C-alpha cells in the first residue's frame, strides 16, 4: 500500500467519499418514499423494508453467488411489503402511519428471524467503478470507487424529477396525491394508484437495503441500518418532495456523517459527540433557514394525512 501523506486534505476527501459511500441507501429509500408520499400516503415502514431488503439480498447472494440476484430479490421483497401496506390502507378508517410503524417492526423482526443463519457467511460484493484512475493518490482512488447502485440512484432521481413534471404517469400520481376528488373526477382510482406507488416505493427501499449488506458496510448484521430508513423518510419532507432535493439531501447526510470520523483522524479529537450530531444540526439549520410562515410545507401533497 502506498503511504501518501494527505493530512488535512483527508477531511474534504472523507466528506466526498462519505457522501458517495453512505448516501446510497438514503437516496433509494427517500426516492421511494417521495413517490409514495406524492400519491398521498406515508409509509413509515420503509425502515423495516430496508432491513428486510438487506437480509434478503445478502441471503440470496450467499446462496446463489450473484449479488445482482440479491438486489433483485430485495426489490421483490420490498415490493411485497409496499403492496401489503398499500392494500391494507385502502380500507376505511385505516391509518397509514400506524400501519407503517407496524410494518417497520414486522419487517425488522422477520429479517432477524430469517437472517440468523446468514450473519456468519460472506456474500459476494456488488461491483464498483473506479473513477479515481486519473489520480495516483490511493486515498483519492479509494474515495472515487463509485458503486453502480449510486449511479443508478442518481439517474433515477433525475428521471423521477423529469417524470413527475412531464409524463402522464407523473401527473396521475400528483393528482391523486393532491386531491382524491379531482382524481376520481378524471376517472382515476386513487386506491390503485396509491397501491402501485407504495409498491414501487417499497421496492426502491429494498434496493437501498441491498446496498447496505452487499456493498457498504457490506455484511448482514442485525444492527446494519441503525435507523437510516427512518432518517430517509424524514429527508423527503426536508427535500420538499422533490426527487432532486432527495438526492441532494442524501448526499448532504452522507457527507456530514463522515465528518466525525474524518476530523478525529486528522487530530481534531475534542467533542466528537458534537460532530456526530452534524447531520442533524445541518437539517435543523436548513429547515429553519428555508421555512417561512407564509409558505410552510410548500410542495406538500394535499392528501397527506399529516397535512390534512
Amino acid at each position, binding site marked *: 500500500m502506498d503511504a501518501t501523506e494527505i493530512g488535512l486534505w483527508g477531511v474534504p476527501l472523507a466528506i466526498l467519499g462519505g457522501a458517495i459511500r453512505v448516501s446510497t441507501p438514503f437516496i433509494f429509500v427517500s426516492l421511494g418514499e417521495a413517490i409514495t408520499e406524492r400519491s398521498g400516503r406515508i409509509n413509515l415502514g420503509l425502515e423495516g423494508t430496508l432491513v428486510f431488503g438487506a437480509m434478503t439480498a445478502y441471503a440470496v447472494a450467499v446462496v446463489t453467488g450473484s449479488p445482482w440476484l440479491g438486489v433483485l430479490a430485495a426489490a421483490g421483497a420490498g415490493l411485497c411489503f409496499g403492496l401489503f401496506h398499500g392494500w391494507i390502507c385502502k380500507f376505511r378508517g385505516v391509518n397509514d402511519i400506524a400501519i407503517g410503524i407496524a410494518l417497520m417492526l414486522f419487517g425488522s423482526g422477520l429479517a*432477524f428471524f430469517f437472517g440468523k443463519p446468514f450473519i456468519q457467511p460472506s456474500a459476494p460484493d456488488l461491483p464498483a467503478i473506479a473513477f479515481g484512475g486519473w489520480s495516483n493518490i490511493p486515498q483519492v482512488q*479509494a474515495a472515487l470507487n463509485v458503486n453502480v447502485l449510486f449511479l443508478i440512484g442518481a439517474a433515477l432521481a433525475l428521471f423521477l424529477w423529469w417524470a413527475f413534471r412531464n409524463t402522464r404517469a407523473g401527473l396521475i400520481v400528483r393528482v391523486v396525491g393532491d386531491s382524491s376528488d379531482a382524481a376520481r373526477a378524471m376517472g382515476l382510482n386513487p386506491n390503485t394508484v396509491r397501491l402501485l406507488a407504495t409498491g414501487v416505493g417499497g421496492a426502491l427501499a429494498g434496493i437501498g437495503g441491498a446496498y447496505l449488506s452487499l456493498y457498504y458496510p457490506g455484511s448482514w448484521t*442485525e444492527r446494519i441500518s*441503525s435507523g437510516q430508513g427512518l432518517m430517509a423518510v424524514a429527508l423527503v419532507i426536508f427535500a420538499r418532495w422533490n426527487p432532486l432535493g432527495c438526492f441532494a439531501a442524501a448526499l448532504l447526510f452522507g457527507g456530514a456523517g463522515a465528518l466525525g470520523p474524518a476530523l*478525529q*483522524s486528522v487530530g481534531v479529537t475534542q467533542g*466528537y459527540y458534537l460532530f456526530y450530531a452534524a447531520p442533524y444540526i445541518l437539517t435543523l439549520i436548513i429547515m429553519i433557514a428555508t421555512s417561512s410562515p407564509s409558505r410552510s410545507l410548500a410542495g406538500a401533497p394535499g392528501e397527506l394525512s399529516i397535512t390534512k
Partner: protein
Amino acid sequence: MTERFMLSRRDLLKTSAAGAALGLASASFPISRAFAATATVGFIYVGPKDDYGYNQAHAEGAATLKGIEGISVVEEENVPETVDVQKTMESMINLDGASLIFPTSFGYFDPHMLAMCAKFPDVQFRHCGGMWNKDKHPMNAGSYFGYIGMGQYLNGVVAGHTSKTKKLGFVAAKPIPQVLLNINSFLLGARSVDPTITCQVIFTGEWSLAVKEAEATNALVDQGADVITCHVDSPKVVVETAAGRGAFVCGYHANQSPLAPEKYLTGAEWNWAKVYKMFVDDLVAGTPLPNFTRGGLADGFVKMSPLGPAVGDAARKQFDGTLAEMMKGGFSVIKGPLKSNKGVVVATEGQAFVETALELESMDYLVEGVVGSTA
C-alpha cells in the same frame, strides 16, 4: 399472586396459554432457586450471539455449559441496556427458574442488575466487566473480567513489527476504562518495537454502528494507518473494511481470521468457557460463588489467535518471548516513566502497574503517542 403484577411482556406471552401454570411456577420458586444438582443459568447479550465479536465470545462460553449434567442454559440476545434487561432477568427467574444470571453487557450493571439483586436476594448475579465492591454492592452480585489488555499489548507487538508507516489505527466505541486500557496497551506493545510509532484512535460513540465503523476505518487508512484494530462489539465490519483497503488487522473478542485470512495478524480473544465452567462447578458443588473474579492469559481467561501468514520472523520471536513472560505473571504494560497524551505523568520512574492492579480499572487517560481524546 402478587407476582402477576410484576410480569413483563415476555412473561405474558409465555403464560398466556396456561394461566394456571403461573401459580405452579411461583409455587416452585424455592425449589428451583436452591443450589441443587439441577440449576438453570441465564445469559443475556446486548447484540446477536453470532456477531464475530463480544456476544459470540460469551455465547461460545455459554454453549460449553450445555453438555453439563443437571445444568440448563437459557439465553436472550439483543437486549438493550435499559429497563428491558430488568424484565428479561425477571422472566428468567420467574419463569425459567434461573438461579444464576450472567448479564454480559457493560451497561447492564448499574442500575439494572443492582435493582434485580435487591429484588431477588436468593438469585446470584455475575456481571461482565463491572466493578463489584464489597462496601457498595450486595453479596449476591459480583463481577468477572479478563485482562485482555495484555492481548492488545501482544497485538501491538506484532503490529509494530508489521507497520511500515509507523502509524496504527484503533476504532473504539466509548472511552470507558476497559477500552482506554486496550488502546494504551496496543500502542505500548507497538512502542516496545519502535518508540516512534503512534496510534490514531477514533471513537464511534456506540458499541455497534456498522456504517460509522466502516467510515472510521476508511478515515484511518486515509491518514496512513496500515495496521488497524478495534474495540467494538462486532469487529466484522472493521476487519473487512480495513482488509479491503489493504491494511493489516489485529482481531478482538473472537477469532476473525476467516474474514481476512491474508491480512489478519493475530487477535486478542476471550475464553469465557473457562470462566463459566468455574462458576457452574461452584454452583453444582454448592460452594459460594466468588464475587470478584479476574484472570488473564496465564489463567486461561484470555487467549491469542494463531499468528497469520503476514507475520515476520522478528515479530514472531518477540511475540513468543513476551507471551512467555506474561505467562509467568507480574508483567506490567503501564510502567513508568509514562505520560498521558496531555502531558500528565501517569506512572513515575520505577512505578509499574501489574495486570491485577485495580487502578487500571478506572483508567481515564490515553498515553503519549495515542492521537485522540477521551471526550
